[in-house]
């Protein structure tokens, strides 16, 4: 995947954003950022000519039980560089700015993350479930997920919490 973003430039970003952090021990450290500054950081990464990360390669969330982590993998076609940006979110109320404001093509991936992990994306144009049924109330990729029980009620397929796990 080309080479990783230069450490000097990560240092520059750290000076520019007060919530930015990275592990200096690692060879390819992920850039951690506070969720308030995420949108601004991404704008800088995309629009600064010396960075020009024009491609959102991958976007997902990981449930670490204490918190939920958003992972963004960005790629610059111009310089053949890539960088990972991570944001830690509160597990009970995960909310983050939508990247569709910068990369329109993240629409479906954000909907998927919302559907399966329950992360709410602010200012998303069409935040609905994409893979699971619309009336499903759990988020399957959470670590404490218990499958819901399907039942037909009045000719409609509904989903209910399991009564007992015998």
């Amino acid at each position, binding site marked *: *995947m*080309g080479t990783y973003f230069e450490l000097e430039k990560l240092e520059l970003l750290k000076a520019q954003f007060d919530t930015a952090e990275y592990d200096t021990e690692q060879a390819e450290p992920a850039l951690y950022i506070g969720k308030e500054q995420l949108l601004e950081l991404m704008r800088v990464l995309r629009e600064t000519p010396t960075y020009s990360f*024009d*491609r*959102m*390669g*991958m976007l*997902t969330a*990981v*449930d670490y039980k204490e918190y939920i982590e958003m*992972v963004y*993998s960005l790629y610059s*076609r111009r310089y*053949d560089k890539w960088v*990972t940006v991570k944001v830690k979110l509160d597990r009970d109320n995960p909310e983050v700015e939508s990247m569709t404001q910068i*990369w*329109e*093509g*993240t*629409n*479906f*991936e954000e909907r*998927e993350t919302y559907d*399966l992990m329950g992360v709410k994306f602010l200012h998303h144009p069409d935040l609905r479930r*994409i*893979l*699971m*049924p619309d009336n499903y109330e759990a988020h*399957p*990729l959470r670590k404490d*997920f218990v499958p819901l029980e399907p039942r037909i009620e009045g000719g409609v397929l509904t989903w209910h919490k399991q009564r007992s796990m015998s």
Partner: protein
Amino acid sequence: MAQTEKYVLNMGPQHPSTHGVLQVQVELDGENIVGAKPVMGYLHRGIEKLMESRTYVQCVPFTDRLDYVSAMNNNLGFCMAVEKLAGIEVPERAEFIRVICAELNRIASHHVFIGSLTNDLGSATGMIYAFRDREKILDLFNIICGARMTAHYIRIGGVAADAQDEFLRDTQKFIDYVPEMLDEYNKLFSGNEIFQARMKKTSIITKEMALKFGMSGPNIRASGVDYDIRKIDKYGAYGKFDFDVPLGKRGDNWDRYMIRMKEIAESAKIIQQALDNMPEGPYMAKVPKVLRPPKGDAYHRVENTRGELGFYIVSDGSTKPYRVHIRRPSFVNLQALDTMCKGMLLADAVTAFATIDPLMGEVDC
């Protein structure tokens, strides 16, 4: 002038031209399409979740079921991501066999594309021709690993079994047949006037739109963006081969079709070079019986038939992955469907579905 009114037509999930269980809600004004919304999830099996409760080795067969007409490429992506995470070096012979299999599967997948496209356009003959030639590749897979579609041949650390002389000989025979095959296709479809009229200047995706939607694979290259992961990342043994990346100009259905025809020739070129320079040696690295990659995460992407396929794996140091995320190319590509269909006639929507080439096993994951 007749009064018209907008209405919504559901195409799929059971429809002969929607390639699996894709449902598209087409908003129509008479015969003109105003909008097309893809509805997914009919084939959602929760592969990402299933992988969390299985060991790394047990995860590989699941990847076969993602993009089931190009299983080898999926195996390759997952295995390379695990190898990156666990720091496993793959022997050179295995890398060459992997490239041969991946490229053969790319050709087979393009056969499905050509076959279903021509079928959708009303020429069932085309499908028979494409599937006849695809059968030759599936037979090759049968020789090398005993499976035809869900191969599970590329394993973590190498490949499941060495390539026999029979396989290499028959692959050579197939590669010699490719120019003749493409000639026949060109005579049969590409030169056809109706085929051209249906394909040219319909469902245009401009360069800007393709980049905006984050598209990848032949679909973005048809719009003239030079973006091929095989060329950019040179993963595996791809750096050792000489091949071109065919590009389109207009980004219409015709370009998306022609790109794939040209890609078949390029894939054949790669396989020929791999066969000529096939190194000797082991076909499998020394992989521990119980694989415990160190704590951490890795993202690896490969050029699948449909575009940029990425695997993001988080390891907590145990035998099972803590989290697997799959970046599926046709899922992301489907975002362009609305723009492609807008302003077209309903009959052209079928062509658009076919040339964007979604595979529901992969979209729904």
